[in-house]
């Protein structure tokens, strides 16, 4: 009995120790299709519901946030968010030109996925297809935030 308990405890220790010791991230090749989003507005709720801070309704704000260096994400069709760290040869994921020009676009990306501490990080090898903006939602939500389009009457 004692030896069985010891064996069980040793297994438990090994199981608990594994996530601590094994921190080196291992990438997995993936192909993902989704929208290039502004992750801060999406996660924080600062501008409204998740459905309102994507697509054409949020295009201008997505430009502001991307140019401002806020992390850009790829929101896949299943709702998974991938934090984009690099696109092709451009590692300037904090305000770089490549990522800025994809704001609110739906893309098909081929790359390497790294997972750590509850987040998905994506290193895009190639944008296989850039479908421009396909999420046309401004009739439902207006422009988000409302000041993203300057009032022409002022």
């Amino acid at each position, binding site marked *: 009995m004692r030896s069985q308990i010891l064996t069980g*405890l*040793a297994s*438990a*220790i090994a199981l*608990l*120790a594994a*996530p*601590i010791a094994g921190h080196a*991230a291992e*990438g997995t090749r993936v192909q993902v299709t989704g929208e290039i989003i502004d992750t*801060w507005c*999406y*996660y*924080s*709720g*600062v501008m409204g519901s*998740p459905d309102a801070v994507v697509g*054409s309704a949020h*295009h*201008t704000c997505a*430009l*502001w*946030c991307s*140019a*401002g*260096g*806020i*992390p850009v994400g790829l929101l896949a069709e299943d709702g*998974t*968010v991938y934090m984009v*760290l*690099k696109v092709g040869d451009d*590692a*300037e*994921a*904090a*305000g*770089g*030109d490549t990522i*800025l*020009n994809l*704001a*609110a676009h739906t893309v098909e990306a081929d790359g*390497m996925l*790294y997972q*750590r*501490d*509850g*987040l*998905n*990080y994506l*290193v895009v090898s190639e944008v296989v297809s850039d479908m*421009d*903006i396909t999420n*046309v939602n*401004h009739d439902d939500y*207006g*422009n988000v935030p409302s000041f993203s*389009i300057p009032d*022409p009457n002022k």
Partner: protein
Amino acid sequence: MRHLIACLALIASPLAAQDFSEGSEARSWNLYAEVPAKFEAEVVDVLCTLTGDCPEDCGAGKRQLGLVRSADDVLVFPMKNSQPAFTGAAVELAPFCGQTVTVDGLMIDDPELGANNVYLLQTIKVADADKIKANQWTKVWAKNHPDAKGKGPWFRRDPRIKDIIATEGYLGLGLEVDEAFIADNF
């Protein structure tokens, strides 16, 4: 046996949920999932940490930077600096890449949406130095864009943003779609 149980508890402790709000002086942004968090961490280049692609200057503020928390080795991803101006945190952290700092700010904790270990950075403190506010982004932008001086916030004057809006429109669907939307809504 007692030794084994103690060892088990010791190993298990970092995996338990930890509260980093103690001592935090973070200002609330009234976000539904915000949790104040002050902790010590190493500033890292996330791409370098995950893939081994490591420039000497950590990307000089152009790459996304992370915070590897000393208490539990968790990689926290700072998404936002302290300015309410659509501005990220990489520029704030870049001068400290590779250093151990104490940061204060707000964790955004919404696992259902996938928001795990993401952070709004408000202050940075190195060793015994005074803490500094994470609000340098707009000053750096102004320094890098001397030709974009003028009234209004930076995002109305940024040449790259203006160029895209001039061709794709505010809604990103072309200028004709913008015109119709503005006519109906303003």
